[in-house]
């Protein structure tokens, strides 16, 4: 399980940390960042990430189902 914000896509709408504050927070400039480590999220956290993927207007949140080798 890997979660990331694509910084090239993110333009700072702030919906991730407004709607899912348990897993996202804001940085100095008002852009979203992960509020927790990304490697072993709980079921609840995964659900929150998936909701944020829907909410993001820039489609900047990436959730990958599993870590696989290259």
């Amino acid at each position: 399980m890997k979660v990331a914000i694509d910084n090239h896509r993110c333009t700072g709408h702030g919906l991730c940390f407004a709607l899912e504050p348990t897993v996202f927070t804001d940085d100095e400039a008002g852009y979203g960042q992960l509020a927790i480590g990304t490697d072993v999220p709980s079921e609840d956290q995964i659900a929150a990430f998936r909701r944020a993927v829907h909410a993001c207007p820039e489609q900047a949140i990436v959730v990958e189902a599993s870590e696989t080798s290259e």
Partner: protein
Amino acid sequence: MADSATASSSVFNMVALPMADDRAASWRFFRDAGDVFESQGIWYITEPEAVRFALRSPELFSSAGAFTQHGVDLPQIPINIDPPDHKRYRMILDPLLSPRVVNAMEDTLRAQIGELVDAFVETGSCDVVADIGRLYPPQVFLSLFGLPLEDRDQLVHWVEEMSAVSHSKDGGPAQSVQDAANSLIAYLEGAIAAKREHPGDDMLTEVIERAADGQFSDDEILGLAFLFCRAGLHTVTSAIGFLMLHLAQHPEIRRDMEKDPSLVTRVIEESLRTEQPVPFSPRIAMNDVEVCGVQIPAGARVRICLATANRDADKYANPDELDLTAGSPGHLSFGGGIHRCLGSHLARRELKLVVEEFHRRIPDYELKQGAIPQVEWPSGTLHLSELNLVFAAGGRS
């Protein structure tokens, strides 16, 4: 392709849309006019994926020269700026309007909206648009810039005179618009000079200090301040009206919010989605470009339709209804791509404070009997002309 677009433009009459009473039908009608179509010399992009593509492609769809100037020759930082300069401005400005900065202002802003509601709570009625919507955003601007709140009514007057230009269909700015723009600029020049003499703990002082470091020119400070007045006041006025209209029409949402105050965030986002104050992002096509099979010529004026993307039937189960369930999709009401609204965090906080402080005093209310809230149309910014509510005098019964 161009022929079919021209054909649709000949039957499409924007002014005839039933926007005043029915935005759902209007935007459906607009969307059905075509994925991309031309009407009266302006190219509209309505297809949701194409909308996102256009917002993300500033190299194809430029913002320089796309916005009304009100006869004013100022660099309107950063809305009229293309890459690569745009990024430099945003890196300076984003932190000055971040949620953390807004947090630091919250107590002041909360007290101010409380006073505005207190002014009418004993009367048992109010017009949300006149009594909150027109007054609160200019107060917030004055607070942000560290300017006297007594200047509010003068500011309201100029900004409303200026926005009259976006109410008319086209043509150059009227004399009254130019006069108001010039008066506002003279006011802002005076404010900047005064702030240089007496710096404060506010955004205008920050910007002036960065100008001293060479990050902004004098014209750019003025252009930025002017843009804030143009873009940050009547838009929030409009959003306040629509938000309170939704809540007046849905007492069950008010009850749910009382049980779960965190619901207010979703109510605000869904109100913004379904009733976005600014339905279009204007751009200029940089090259001949084909979008959804339609050729848009280089130099064409383009309007990217945020409203139809917000009501995308493929994305939203009930696009015209508020969806307050967790996990509902987001919206483009603050635009998208690099020009995403700089003031969005402040605007959201204003809306939240309005809801919280209004309902703390007046939990129950309804539309005044016979009142039919209507949107002014045609208009650049969609907004209710008035929103009359009645409630038990004194509020809490």
